[in-house]
């Protein structure tokens, strides 16, 4: 078949109308929040809620990564929140170092003698590591004074870890549930390691005070939170475009094929391991970036954030939102995390059953767990599946049956969109 026989390639956006819709909605949302915010608008949305929304956007971004690796490539990674956390730690180290440096230099300026570089560094180390009974910088902080290098670490450390781990795992053909357990073990090992005081990252105290940007003490939090909100929205938008681009085209077809039948793809001559490794590493990098944007808004990061349960929740979001479609992941993460905030924040009214009162703060997790079971059993396509009801009404004729996620889900439709 010659090239002429193929239909002319339409522009990227035209082939993926969902990207335009998504970007438009995200833009409207961002502008709306800005106009309602305390800093630049009428003050209807409090600063803390702007932060919550900003954090939710970051969670959407990491959910996007999870969808890419799980929904499209079939690798149920239970370790992506580890990459998210590493990104947070990497940026947190710079934030903490730079801010402490400013404080220390200020306090030393009033000393009788101008401080030597060694004295400054010792004083910073004392400030940061006093809580774990150390007063020297561990080697891991070697480049903490450089924003550029720490930003590079946000991308490189999760990327390298994913590369090494993925290479080891995929090379020995660890697949399916074994891989899930292995990634979970990786997360557990990392969080246990970070829990130690001599890990060099302040043990279970974690890094704190990250919401204060060094040198910008005069800027009120209401404005800083909006900056991060915009940055998160921008990252999510770019991430969405990138993910759409990755899953479209030949590369996307191959990874979906790997999800549906790995051996067959291998027999067709594709280097399955390389594809999986590429997707695994790429999503780890995206997760790292999302974490680097999340934790300055959260203000604190500690090893509990990396515990295996966090990564499982990530899978829960994607599953509830609907995996195998990018907007599903975004919807799932936003929906579940916002509803969770509502329930655990005491927003939901208590239900009086006569013999007992259901307080949602206590029972929300039970509801989440059970609804998760129900979604898995009865709505494998998640919330995103609702959109199928609309599109199916419009284009009733479909090629082939609905094959379901485990047996080649949606492959024809996805190839077209």
């Amino acid at each position, binding site marked *: 078949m010659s090239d002429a026989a193929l239909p002319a390639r339409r522009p990227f956006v035209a082939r993926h109308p969902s990207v335009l819709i998504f970007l438009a909605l995200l833009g409207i949302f961002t502008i709306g929040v800005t106009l309602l915010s305390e800093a630049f608008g009428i003050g209807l949305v409090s600063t803390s809620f702007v932060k919550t929304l900003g954090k939710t956007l970051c969670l959407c971004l990491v959910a996007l990564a999870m969808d890419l690796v799980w929904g499209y490539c079939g690798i149920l990674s239970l370790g992506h929140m580890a990459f998210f956390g590493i990104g947070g730690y990497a940026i947190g180290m710079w934030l903490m170092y730079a801010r402490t440096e400013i404080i220390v230099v200020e306090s030393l300026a009033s000393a009788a003698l101008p401080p*030597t570089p060694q004295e400054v560094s010792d004083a910073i180390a004392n400030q940061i590591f006093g809580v774990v009974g150390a007063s020297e910088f561990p080697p891991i902080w070697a480049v903490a004074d450089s924003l550029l290098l720490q930003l590079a670490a946000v991308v490189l450390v999760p990327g390298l870890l994913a590369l090494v781990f993925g290479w080891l795992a995929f090379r020995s053909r660890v697949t399916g549930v074994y891989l*899930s357990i292995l990634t979970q073990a990786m997360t557990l090992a990392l969080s246990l390691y970070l829990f130690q005081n001599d890990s060099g990252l302040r043990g279970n105290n974690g890094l704190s005070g990250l919401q204060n940007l060094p040198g910008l003490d005069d800027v009120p939090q209401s404005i800083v939170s909006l900056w991060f909100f915009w940055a998160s929205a921008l990252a999510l938008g770019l991430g969405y475009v990138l993910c759409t681009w990755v899953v479209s085209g030949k590369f996307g077809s191959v990874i979906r094929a790997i999800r549906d039948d790995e051996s067959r793809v291998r027999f067709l001559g594709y280097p399955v391991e390389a594809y999986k490794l590429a997707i695994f590493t790429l999503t780890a990098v995206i997760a790292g970036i999302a974490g680097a944007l999340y934790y300055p808004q959260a203000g604190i990061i500690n090893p509990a954030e990396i515990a295996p349960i966090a990564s499982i929740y990530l899978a829960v979001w994607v599953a509830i939102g609907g995996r195998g479609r990018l907007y599903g992941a975004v919807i799932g993460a936003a929906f579940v995390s916002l509803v969770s905030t509502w329930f655990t924040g005491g927003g939901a009214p208590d239900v009086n059953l006569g013999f007992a009162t259901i307080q949602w703060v206590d029972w929300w997790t039970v509801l989440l767990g059970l609804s998760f079971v129900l979604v898995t059993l009865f709505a494998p396509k998640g919330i995103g599946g609702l959109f199928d009801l609309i599109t199916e009404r419009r284009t009733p004729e479909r090629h082939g049956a609905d094959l379901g996620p485990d047996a080649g889900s949606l492959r024809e439709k996805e190839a077209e969109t």
Partner: protein
Amino acid sequence: MLLAVPGGVASSHAQEARAPIQLLLQEHGEIIAKSSRRTIGPAIDALARSGLPQAQLVLEKWRAKEMWRDKETGLFVFAEEIDRRTIRIFDFADGREIAEVADKGFKQLKPNSGIRGLIGAALVQFQLSDPDPANRATALDAIERDAEPSHLTALRGAIESEGDAGLRARKARLERLLTIRFAEDPAERIAAIEGFSGDLGVDVRAALNPLLARALDVSTSRPSGPDIAAVLEPGSAALSRAEAHALLVDKGLAVPRVTPAQKREALIANIADGQVGGVQLAELDSEAARDLAYAALARAGLAPPSAAPGDIDAALAAHVFFERFVGAPPEVARAAADVLAGIETQVAINQFIDLVLDAVSLGSIYFLAAIGLAITFGVMRVINMAHGEFIMMGAYTGFVVQQIVPDYTLSIILAIPLAFAVTFGAGVALERLVIRWLYHRPLETLLATFGVSIALQQIAKNIFGTQARPLTAPGWLDGSLIVNDIVSISYIRIAIFVLALLFLALFLLVMNRTRLGLEVRAVTQNPRMAASMGINPDRINMLTFGFGSGIAGIAGVAIGLYAKVTSEMGADYIVQSFMTVVVGGVGNIWGTLLGASMVGVLQKGIEWFNPSNTLAAQTYMILFVILFIQFRPRGIIALKGRAAEA
């Protein structure tokens, strides 16, 4: 009430003033009456060493504040108070009652607690020969706690007369220990030391270690003499250069090196006109500039000179550093060192045995936690993330039973089948309601059961609260089996080990010897073929899953006895359990056993390198398992052929 006899008549009481014990008391009458902790020593010593049969009585009465002194004659008696003003006095010499008198003429001796302590120590030697074995044992305890040189003689005198074999052995051992510490004759001490060769007792090491005390010293020439323990090289592990230099400074043999902090203070103290030692203040932001300014100060005599690195090198090179024995004469110390080295080897061997026991016991806990998974995951290939919560349910069942049945033994016996029943039911319900719809979607089984897991965990938290609940072991499981001072293992751990073995046997029995096992194996290998043979796969799957879950419930009771019962206890074991099964090889119970042993040995082994840090041990253990799976992706015992593809 008796008529009080006037004090003047007291001397007329028939009391033997010339009895030896009374003479001795009179000799020290003044200091006894003075009753000061600082001066009382000779009086107590004299009494204790007197060899008089009444000495013990005197000391006991004195300590009990029952000794009185006649104000007029100065004679000592002991007395019991009849009422507030009258006492009945007794003679120390023969214990005979003398009279009932008014207490006006007598002064009660009230030793303070310090003196009572001294009296108690002196009494020990009498108690060593006390007729009551309990008192003799108490006296030995006292000596073990706080030995004194005088005890050695007393102990030697009390061994021969000892009738109780156990106490006699204790006395003999204590005598040898005290010989090591207090004997005068080095040969005697060395003999006692060598007698303890290979003894693992903590007390032996406690007696020997002080003998090896060394003091660091320095001289310009190479020292000689028997008491030189070792010559040290500065910069070695035993003696850092800084320590060596500090010693020289202490002895006035070298100039101290001024620390940066001292230097800084000296500079600050000498700021004049915005400069120090001719250097502008603003330029003092580096160590080099500060050194320069300080050197100028030192030249001007405004600060003590600081040693340059070259000076330190020269000073260290010019002296020889050595250690001498100060804890004991050199030959005794050397003998102690030899024996101690032998003991250390023994200790190391025994610690290794203890480590292996620990590892086996940890391994059996992992095995218990994992054996249910070996059935649900290993045989049925169902990833049940709620497995940990079944363990928790079993433990809470045990807790509830203990609330109702107070007898611990009975409640445990009741709890085990009940826990099995509860978790069997939960497992069957989970299989019927959730898992059977997902047999072809293993990843989604993982997620759905995870949903069940967080729901169950939260429900347990809501019902039982977040604090840990105790599951108390029956009395006969308290304590440990003590082999020697190093090797010991608690009975609960032994019970868990036995339980693990029982489960292994049960598993093998059910799978290989029963109709159910046959059908389970058939359904696992080929459900359709099994169905066509008349086996109902649905029923078998349900029963198998229930069986695995039930075992998790029993494991929960066992683990609850060993650890605390919390809503998160299952989550603590779930990852390790899965790793145990995966490492061992899915679908093979022997593999699970090997996997559990490996995980247990690894974790304890790594902990041994870094005992203070169990977190690090877990981290490295998991990393090792991840790497291990790279090389044996199908575990230690890998299934071969078609079964492996299932």
